[in-house]
């Protein structure tokens, strides 16, 4: 009894600080729940998991255009087929060696599951094993961005997955989805130690990784989900958290920066869009859309995302394509509010402004969007148009946009080119053949746009592609299906315990969202 009391007292009064351990821990957070199955990966949290637990055949080159080999040593193309030679020194975390079978299996699985970013591989007819370390992809039609899209084909451990098939119909049963949503089956520099979709995923360094990894790279990584902004802010201040998600409101990021936090940036391959439903009155009239696009206060929008004097979560938009991509307009040709023009267009619109009631939606998980909704509402009020704001959780939004009639008048979205190529940014958004997805709440059906998009993806030379996208850009501005808010740059507040060259040094940046969070390239300083 006495011992018990003493022990309790000792425990209560014991310091709660961490006992010193040699192991380094990196702690970061993401808003959404991380999906561990790479075939289902689509958003930022999924990408972080995927790029660390799995590897891809190639990677974007750091600090410039082009791609370098990763799991593949080299590749060549002939017409519509691409052949990759695999490295011979790669083993999965399970110990199984990497072979061409795994690559074929990975593509088949991706296509069979049909979720996540599998649409990128719709054009791939088949993958064939040539020998143990050689694989060939055959395309149905010319597709210029194919190599780029391979950064979204994580290679999974066929043998391990086949040993762990769950319940399901057919030969492949569930394709191992039950297993893969809780376990890692990759070659990556980090393996999953535990995965709790509500709380966090814990990853540990893979000692047998095929590339050499700096000792300073974190031994353990904790990816936490769904933390409140105030929580993240306090945790970083107290040194209990390392990298905040990009969804932290700018005020909080700037408060952290004032307290001495460093800022990481990942430069834009995407933009912030206000997407107008082109099938719903009054926005089915281009004049109305143009009126709204001209009424929008672009310069205030930029002010809203400023974090410090020199860092902002974005830069002024110049047109439909973010600066730096094929077909983009020069950086100084920025969009600006023009109320006179807006009124002209409104007058030309066939609908009576006094009868309009525009539904402006915003994604519940991204509080910043509420402010843009308010900004739009006040801009539209200045034009004499009534509007109302509707907050939507992401899942509900993704469901509602499937049907044009359920899609709100205006949807706010951050969209990134998932492979860094404009095709992956724009095709899914605007081509009339793509079904309604969260990327395409415009439900656009425009033959000129379709034509340019097709030309852009099949053109052989970069110059031809640039010309096609330039024309596309002009057409998109003409029909104003979308208000282009700003070109996006992700900003992350981080503690000073961590160095991430890929997120601070432009010459080391990958130009692909999430890849900057390759933990093997980070260094812990304490």
């Amino acid at each position, binding site marked *: 009894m006495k011992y018990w009391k003493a022990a309790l007292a000792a425990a209560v009064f014991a310091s709660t600080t961490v006992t010193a351990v040699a192991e380094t821990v990196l702690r970061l957070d993401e808003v959404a729940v991380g999906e561990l199955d790479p075939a289902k990966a689509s958003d930022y949290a999924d990408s972080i998991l995927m790029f660390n637990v799995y590897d891809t055949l190639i990677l974007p080159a750091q600090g410039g255009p082009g791609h370098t080999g990763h799991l593949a040593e080299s590749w060549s193309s002939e017409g519509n087929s691409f052949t990759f030679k695999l490295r011979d020194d790669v083993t999965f975390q399970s110990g199984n060696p990497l072979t061409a079978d795994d690559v074929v299996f990975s593509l088949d699985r991706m296509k069979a599951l049909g979720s996540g970013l599998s649409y990128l591989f719709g054009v791939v007819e088949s993958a064939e094993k040539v020998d143990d370390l050689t694989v060939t992809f055959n395309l149905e039609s010319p597709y210029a961005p194919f190599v780029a899209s391979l950064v979204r084909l994580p290679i999974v451990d066929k043998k391990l997955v086949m040993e762990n098939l769950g319940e399901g119909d057919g030969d492949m049963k569930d394709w191992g989805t039950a297993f893969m949503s809780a376990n890692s089956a990759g070659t990556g520099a980090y393996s999953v130690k535990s995965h709790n979709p509500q709380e966090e995923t814990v990853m540990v360094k893979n000692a047998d990784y095929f590339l050499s990894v700096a000792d300073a790279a974190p031994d353990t990584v904790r990816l936490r989900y769904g933390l409140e902004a105030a929580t993240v802010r306090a945790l970083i201040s107290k040194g209990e958290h390392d990298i905040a998600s990009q969804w932290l409101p700018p*005020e909080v990021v700037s408060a952290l920066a004032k307290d001495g936090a460093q800022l990481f940036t990942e430069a834009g391959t995407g933009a912030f869009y206000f997407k107008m439903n082109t099938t719903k009155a009054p926005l089915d009239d281009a004049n109305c859309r143009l009126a709204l696009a001209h009424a929008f206060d672009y310069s205030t929008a930029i002010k809203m995302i400023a974090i410090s004097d020199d860092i902002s979560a974005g830069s002024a938009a110049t047109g439909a394509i973010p600066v730096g991509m094929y077909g983009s307009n020069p950086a100084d040709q920025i969009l600006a509010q023009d109320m006179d023009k807006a009124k002209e267009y409104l007058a030309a619109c066939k609908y009576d402004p006094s009868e309009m009631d525009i539904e402006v939606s915003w994604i519940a998980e991204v509080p910043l969007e509420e402010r843009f909704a308010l900004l739009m*509402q006040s801009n539209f009020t200045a034009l004499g148009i009534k509007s109302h704001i509707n907050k939507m959780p992401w899942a509900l939004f993704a469901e509602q946009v499937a049907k044009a009639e359920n899609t709100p008048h205006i949807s706010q979205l951050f969209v990134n080119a998932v492979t860094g190529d404009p095709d992956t940014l724009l095709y899914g958004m605007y081509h009339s053949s793509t079904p309604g997805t969260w990327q395409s709440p415009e439900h656009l059906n425009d033959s000129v746009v379709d034509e340019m998009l097709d030309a852009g993806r099949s053109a052989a030379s970069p110059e031809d592609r640039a010309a096609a996208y330039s024309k596309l850009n002009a057409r998109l501005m003409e029909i104003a299906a979308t208000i282009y808010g700003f070109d996006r740059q992700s900003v992350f507040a981080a503690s000073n315990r961590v160095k991430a060259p890929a997120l601070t040094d432009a010459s080391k940046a990958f130009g692909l969202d999430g890849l900057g969070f390759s933990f093997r390239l980070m260094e812990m300083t304490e």
Partner: protein
Amino acid sequence: MKRTLIILLRNPLSLLGVLLVLMVIVLAVFADFIAPFPDHKGAVVDFVYFNQAPSDRNLMGTDLVGRDLFSRIIYAYRISLMLGVVVLVISVPIGVLAGLFAGYRGGKTEFVLMRLTDVFLSIPPLVLAIAMMGVLEPTLLNAMLAVTAMWWPWYARLVYNVARSEREEGYVLAAEVIGASQWHICFREILPNCLPAVITKMTLDMGFVIIIASSLSFLGLGVQPPTPDLGSMVAEGARYLPDSWWLTVFPGLAILVAVFGFNLIGDALREILGAEQ
């Protein structure tokens, strides 16, 4: 009635309650004249003055798009009071009727009605409202509906208990003997005896409705922006703690002040009316 009022005003605490409630009502009713920035109740953005700490210009600071927080809190009181009144105006008659009939008629009516109230009462109140709001579109009207749905059973149970004991009382029997109609007995004999309890509960409930409604909007299931609402203001502001503390502290205190006022009055009424019974 007059006596009640005198006692209310003589006790310093209940006087404080009366003053607080009066203040809230005056602010809500005359918001258009009192609010320094009446147009800030809606979708206005002013990025010159955004996220400002309390100052002479903005008594309680400004929100993240530059709107005056004091003005918005005043308008939010309007919503809270309206919601409280509407919820009580709908749920009290329903609950009272259900309780009266269950208590007076007995038998099957009693069994069905009271088991129904048991079902409602056995879901934690907030959970029921949250579940309903999860299904319905988040609007002011639906928030009222959801809160009403969770509120009537309490009155049903309260009146039921009174009615059941009154049923056995002499004067009800007497009324039955002289052949008074059921309608007469329910409304003229039993109901007046339930009234003090119902009125006291209504005053206290005004505060609770405000609490529940703000809880719903705190979770994003209530009134939608740009309509100012205390609960969603706290929720929104909580993201910016501790730097922009005014965004949460003032709306939170505003809830506290209003509910405290109603509770002070309710407490005093309970003592006065309870003593009279």
